[in-house]
Every structure is written in structure tokens, then in C-alpha cells.
């Protein structure tokens, strides 16, 4: 099981823990994530607002890098996935668009190459039963709020689960023994793109998400997007200062929790990196 792996910029910087934990998890599961060479930034959220064709051109370039490794490009970052999948679907369905992009990027589009989110790979390719067999430390008694944010399942054309009511992360974490909670803000936006101009608005949005998870009885939030994780984790101090609410609710990557369940150490999944540390909670549950 080999996939062409596209980490993207965040996973080599602020979200290095996402990258590291995913690789640790993949190794334990026997999945090879082979990093593509010469990759560039996907352009994330600003590029398609300035120049949609260029955004698709970058995605086409990135997809072409998978040649010789696999027809499936594994992506972890929700923004990278969103950008690449959207371009891929458009090029496959719209011949005119495809010609435009091919001309711009100078690279022919290969309709066989597919952008795959790692969640989708675990669910469909690897399978929950196989995953269950690899679990050595079940996440029992851990009440997890699975947070999808806004990019992962929107628009419906790129979704790998029900776009209105995705349950894929719940399925996977439950396979690893966790208890997932039913909560209201799983698909709400965390406000990441307004982080700089409208910090107050972001604090409010994040506060809503955290409060909703807390009310539903969650011990911890699982994320699948570097921006979401950073926001939910780092803003808690600001919320305490400005809104006077102390959540103290760790927000980690789903790969970190799965890695631990499959026998990785806290260090191997960089669990200590969070601002709101998950370590005391996981110790209390005998997972570290």
C-alpha cells in the first residue's frame, strides 16, 4: 500500500506534529506515504481568490508529481485537499477548463490520478476491520468530539462522505475504541481565514465550537486540518483573557490519537506540542 504523499507547507512547519504523527501511524499500519519530490505550496486559500486558473494549474502540477509512485495522492491538510480535489474534479468534468489549465501549467492532466484525504484512505482502502486489528491501546473512556470544520466536506462535489452529515472520523476513532460525542458545531467554521483582520470574531467562533464540544461532554477535540487545530488550540488563552471563559479543552490531530492507539509513544506523535496539553488527560486515561 503505497501512496504519493503531499504534505504541504503547514505540515512542514506549524503542523509538524500532524505530519510526524501521520507518518508514525502509517508505519504502524503498513501504509507507505512516499513524499513526492519538488512539491510546492498548494496556494491554500488566497490563490483561488486572486486567480482561479492559477490555483488549478498549481494543483495540476502537484498531481503530476505522483507519477511513478501511485495514482493516489494522499493529503492530510484540509485546505490542500480542498484545493487539489476541486481542481481535479473540475478538470475531469469540464474539457474547456482542462485545456485552459493544461495550457497554463504546461502539463497534461492525468484523469486517473486522484486526490485522497488520509481519512478516506483509512476508511475505504485500509478498512476499519484491519485498523481494529492494529489497535493495541484502545482509546476507551476517551470522549472525542470530531471536528470537520468547513473545508473538509464542502462543496459536496469533493466530499468523501455525506457532505451535510459526515461521520467518517467518528467511524475511524470508534474503531480505535474511542467514544465519540454527538455535538452541534462539528461543521462550523473556526474562522481561520479571519485570524489577522478580525481576531475578535475568530475568538467568538472558536469559543462557540469549544463550548459546544464541552457541553456535549467531550474530553478532547480531534481535528483533520492544521488551521482548525491551531485555532482551537491557540485561541483558548485569548478567549480566557477577552471573554472570560476557560475551556482547557485539548485539540489534537486524529492521527495523533490513532497513532497512540496503535502503539506509538507520545513523543513519536509529538503529543506534547499542543498549547493546551493533552498529556494530563491521556495519562489519566492510561494512554501515555
Amino acid at each position, binding site marked *: 500500500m503505497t501512496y504519493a504523499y503531499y504534505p504541504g507547507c503547514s505540515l512542514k512547519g506549524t503542523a509538524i506534529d500532524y505530519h510526524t504523527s501521520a507518518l508514525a501511524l502509517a508505519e504502524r499500519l503498513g501504509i507507505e506515504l512516499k513524499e513526492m519530490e519538488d512539491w510546492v505550496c498548494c496556494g491554500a486559500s488566497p490563490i483561488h481568490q486572486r486567480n482561479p486558473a492559477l490555483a488549478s494549474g498549481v494543483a495540476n502540477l502537484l498531481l503530476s508529481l505522483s507519477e511513478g509512485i501511485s495514482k493516489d495522492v494522499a493529503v492530510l491538510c484540509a485546505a490542500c485537499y480542498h484545493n487539489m480535489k476541486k481542481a481535479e474534479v473540475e478538470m475531469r468534468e469540464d474539457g474547456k477548463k482542462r485545456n485552459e489549465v493544461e495550457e497554463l501549467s504546461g502539463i497534461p492532466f492525468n484523469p486517473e490520478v486522484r486526490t485522497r484525504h488520509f481519512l478516506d484512505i483509512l476508511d475505504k482502502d485500509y478498512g476499519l476491520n484491519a485498523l481494529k486489528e492494529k489497535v493495541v491501546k484502545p482509546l476507551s473512556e476517551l470522549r472525542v468530539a470530531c471536528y470537520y470544520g468547513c473545508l473538509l466536506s464542502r462543496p*459536496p462535489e469533493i466530499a468523501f462522505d*455525506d457532505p*451535510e*452529515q459526515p461521520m467518517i472520523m467518528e467511524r475511524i476513532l470508534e474503531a480505535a475504541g474511542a467514544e465519540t460525542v*454527538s*455535538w*452541534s*458545531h462539528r*461543521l462550523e467554521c473556526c474562522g481561520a481565514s479571519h485570524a489577522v483582520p478580525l481576531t475578535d470574531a475568530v475568538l467568538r467562533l472558536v469559543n462557540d465550537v469549544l463550548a*459546544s464540544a464541552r*457541553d456535549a461532554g467531550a474530553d478532547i477535540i480531534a481535528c483533520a486540518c492544521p488551521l482548525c487545530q491551531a485555532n482551537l488550540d491557540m485561541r483558548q488563552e485569548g478567549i480566557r483573557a477577552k471573554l472570560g471563559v476557560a475551556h482547557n479543552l485539548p485539540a489534537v490531530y486524529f492521527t495523533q490519537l490513532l497513532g497512540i492507539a496503535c502503539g506509538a509513544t507520545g513523543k513519536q506523535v509529538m503529543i506534547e506540542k499542543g498549547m493546551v496539553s493533552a498529556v494530563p488527560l491521556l495519562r489519566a486515561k492510561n494512554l501515555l
Partner: protein
Amino acid sequence: MSKIGVFVCHCGENISRTVDCARVAKASGQIRGVAVAKDYKYMCSDPGQALIKNAIKEHKLDGVVVSACSPHMHEKTFRKAVTEAGLNQFLCEMANIREHCSWVHEKEEPTTRKAIELVRLMVEKVKRNMALEPIRVDVTKRALVIGGGVAGIQAALDIADGGHEVILVEKDPSVGGHMAQLSETFPTLDCSQCILTPKMVDVGSHPNIKLYTYSEVEKIEGFVGNFKVTIKKKARSVDIDKCTGCGECQLKCPSKKIPSEFDRGLKNRTAIYIPFPQAVPARPVIDREHCIYFTKGKCKACQKVCPTEAVDFEQTDEYVEEEVGGIVVATGFDLYTTDKQGPYPDYKGYGEYGYGEDPDIIDGLQFERLASASGPTGGAIQRPSDGKEPKSVVFLQCIGSRHPSKGIEFCSKICCMYTAKHTMLYKHKVHHGTAYVFYMDIRAPGKGYDEFVRRAIEEDGAVYLRGRVSRIYRSGDHLIVKGADTLSGAAVEIEADMVVLATAVMPQPGIEGLFQKLGISYDQYKFASEAHPKLRPVECATAGIFLAGACQGPKDIPESVAQASAAASKALILFSRDQMLREPVVAKVNENTCIACWYCVEICPFTAISKKDIRDRQGNLIKRVAEVNPSLCTGCGTCAATCFSNSIDLDGFTDEQIYSEINSLMAVGQDLFPEPEKAEGDSPDEKAA
């Protein structure tokens, strides 16, 4: 030698505008076997028909081809005309040079040539037509009505009042259907049960109506005028002749926590139960799935308490056969269930709205029960979770309907009206409350309908917001409804105490099984299809089967009742004759050549072909052959096309007729394969031909 008459119609200018009718007549006159060929401006007019009749007599014609419009338009007219002139009606055929020629082609040479060829094709067929007699079949003057909702009740009462016996089959323990569940009806706000229950009682006591409740149609055989129906009477576990309906058993039944179907889960019922107080028949039934005796082997509390010994645990499903001449299908609808495990597995639910998870999110029929005086709250609007009076209720329209990404594209037609009614009922009971409605469009075309919606908005103050809701979630004591108001362009967030979803009207789940038994067609959503959407909206394409109510598509009560009466009148028309005539297009077996392979027996969709023994005078078996029952045969001709030994032929469409039609198509006066070197002398093509 045949003497065929060809009559070419101009249809005013409809045909002659693009086809040279005079030339068609002239060319037809030169076809071998044609005794006379004429053209005329309006062949279907009186003088036109007289022209045909005179020609038949004058030329002693033995066949007629009317070259005019589609046979679906005027075949009956001309067949009647030739009969009046003494010619067998089946010796008259039509060449369709209007719909299939003059209307669809330009005025040019090939168009006229096509018309001539179409005439020639029909002439060749008519030469080989046989004089046939229509088949007479006796009509059983009894009707089967399937479904005991308001449509079925109305159809049954009309037919019964017309003097014919009716078999009414209802799958539930009582008649009444969804209308019995409703509180008040739009646009008059009269009480639904008050107007329905008298009709239910009539159905139960009418001397011409035989009522089978808790029963289903198991099998249907036969054809129009002569259906044989097998009805499965599900084991009720109560002898309804002995039972007096006193209800003692219900009081004693220890299994009390079963969600009531009638109250749509808002109230519980017992395992032995009468679905609602006004039920017809007012007799209980034991729900064996939940009965303690049937699941655990002991209890029998109901039997012990029954004063008339009516409880019978040994009762089994019973099958009865009934013979009927016509069938009214009135199986009604159910609401699209919005949770993920609904009864419509082909459709995605609305998991994001939390129906089925949060008790205060209910559907339209549940609201009807809440508002109904006979409902679980006695008509007080109380939210299901804690019985508190909701201070704000949000109504969402078009849940499922008009939502292609959820798999349903049609409009459910009744929701705009019943939602407006709900807001009124709510405001009349909770004066200080606010009703919000999220809608896409308000569709209120009907007598007094739009006025009704305006009243809801203007007098009762319902807040109508044009837009959709993205998400509903609980926040403490409230439900937060997040949506968009597309008229103001603003995002809306409403704190609601209760949410009502106007879910799509769907056919009964699994109803296609019954439709297949009936041999009637249905659309992609499993709504039954009518024979013609405009001119035959009540009949099915299958003769003798009529549609009433929402099984055909979403309908409100007046429409369902109107269609039910229409279906009843169709059945009564059928019953007005002792015998009916059928086209004699039936298969015939040549017993001399039949090799008894029985392929025809297997392939016949109507089981019209059986095996027949041929014996000599001493009774010794000589051979076995296939035999067609002409009253079962519908004339599809599948057997004729399947027979190995060419021993079955179809009257009206014989092999000889079809081959002669094909033969007539050979291009005359046109070289099939023009090649320069073949210009001179006999071409090989002609030799081969």
C-alpha cells in the same frame, strides 16, 4: 384478386401542404389489387365517409385503406363507417401520412414518395387482413378498492351507492388513512375527523361493501371484467364477530410501551389495541411482534379478561378469493422520513436536521396529532420533550421535496397549505407565540387557498422567511435554527422551542410490489402512472384498473375525493354493460405443426397459453399442443415471435401481413445500389429480388 379502396385525406391543408395528395391517390390507384383510389379534403367528415361507403358498395371492395391521420386519432371513426357499408371493420386500416409524414417533413419530393410508400405498405397488409369479430367477455360487476383512506372510502361508497358490490381492502386494522390523523383541514379549518368518521361508519355498514381490514392483496389474475383476487387476511388474533369492542383487553395488557402508529410515536399503545377510538371496525388487533404471549410464551391477560372469549391466539393468516370486474387503487402516501434509517433507502435523509434524535423536531403529521383534539395532548400544543408550551415554533417547508441533491425533484403540493394551517392552529392556541416559516415559494393555487395563506401571515402574524435552513442544533433548552433569509440577504438564527419539518409526500414504502402484481406502471418515485396525463388521468394503461388519491402523486383531500369519485364512475361505466367487446387481436395455434416445445407457454406474460391433449375417439392421446385462451390473450405477439415451428400467429399482425409489408418497401423505380457501370441492362439486384 383483391379489391382495395384507397382514400387519401387532405386534412384541410394539414396533409396537402407538404404532400401532393392527388399524386398519392393516382399512384395508389396503380398498385395491384387497388380497385379505386380517391382523395378528398376532409375524409372524416360526413361527405368524406359517404364517399368511402359509396365506393365500398359500388366497387364491392374487400378492403379499405384510409390514408390520413394516426389510427390512434380516427381508426374507430373509419371502422365504424365501413361497418355501416357492410364491410367487416377489421378490413379497414389507416396509413398515417399526417403525424408520421406531412407534419414532420418539408414540402419536397421524398415526402410525397414516403406517403405513397406508406399507403402501399398498408394496401399490402389489408390484402391479407381477415374479417374478425370482436371478442365478447362477460363483466363481473363487482369492484375491488385497495386502500381505505379517504380516496378509497369515497370510491367504495360511490360504487356501492351505484348498486354494485365493493370489496374494500385495507392493510391497517382500521379504515381512515392519514385523513383520520389530521386535526383540522385547510382552507376552512373544519375538523378532519368530524367530516371523515361518518363516511368511515358508512363504509363499515353499507350493505354493498365487504370490508377486509388488516388485509392485503396477495395475488391478482385475469383481466378487465374478470379479475380474480386473492386477499390475505392477516391474523388479527381477535374474532371480530365475537368481540364487542368493549376495550377491557387494552386496559389489562401489560405491554404498554409501544409507540402508536396512529399518533406517530407521540403516544404509546398496548400490544392488543384499537388504533384510535373512532376506528372502523372498532375491534382490537394483537401486534404479535410486541405481545408478551407471542414473544415470551405466557401472559394471556387479554384472553382472561375478555367477556366474550373473542381473543384467539391460534388464529392464522387466512386467504380468500374474490372475483371482481374493476379495481380502484387508492393506496395513498406516507411521509418521507428524514432520519437516516427511514423506510426509503434510495433517498438520503436529513441527518443534519436531527429528526429522530431530538424529540422536539417533528414532522407535519406529528404536528397534526399534537393539534388534534383526539391527540396525545388533547389538542394542547406541547413540545414532546417536556410538555412545555413552545413559545416559538419554526416550520421548514420543502424537506425532501424540490431537492434534487436529496433525490427528489417533485413538489409535494400540500405542504405550503398545511404549514400555513399549522401556523394558524398554533397561533390560535398559543397567542403569544411566534411561528416562523422557511419556504422556497408559496404555492397556493386553489379555491380560497391563497387567501388562507395571506390570513396566516397578515392576521395570525406568521413570520415567513424565504430561504433554507442549514442546520439545527440543541443549545440548552432551545433549538438553534440557522438559516438564510434570501430576500433580505441576511443570515438568520432563531431560538426555537420546537421545529416542524414539512417532509415530502411519498408513495407507501414498498408499494411497487403491489403495482407489479396489478401489472400497472409507476414512475421513478414509485407513484402509479396514469394512462394519459391529461385526458385519462384516472385510468391506468392496464384496462379495468383505476387510480384514486395520492398513490398517483401528491394530492390534497378535495383532489383525492374528486379523483376517487371519477374512478368510481369509470368503474360504474364498466359495470353498465353485461358484456364488453375486445379487439380480436389474439394469438392462434396451428395444431398441425405445433411441436409442443412449450416455449410459448413459458414466455406468455398473461398465462394465456396452456397445454392441450388431442385424443382420438377412443380417448387415446395422439399428441399435445399449445392452446391459447382468447379471453386471457392480450395480443402482444411475443409467442408468435418465439415459436420455433411458426405454429402460432397473431390475428391482425400475422407473419404474412408483416412480411408483405416489408416486401412492399422494396425501392421501386430507385436503384438500390447505384453504380455507374450498372446503368445499362439488368442489374444483379433485380435478379436477386
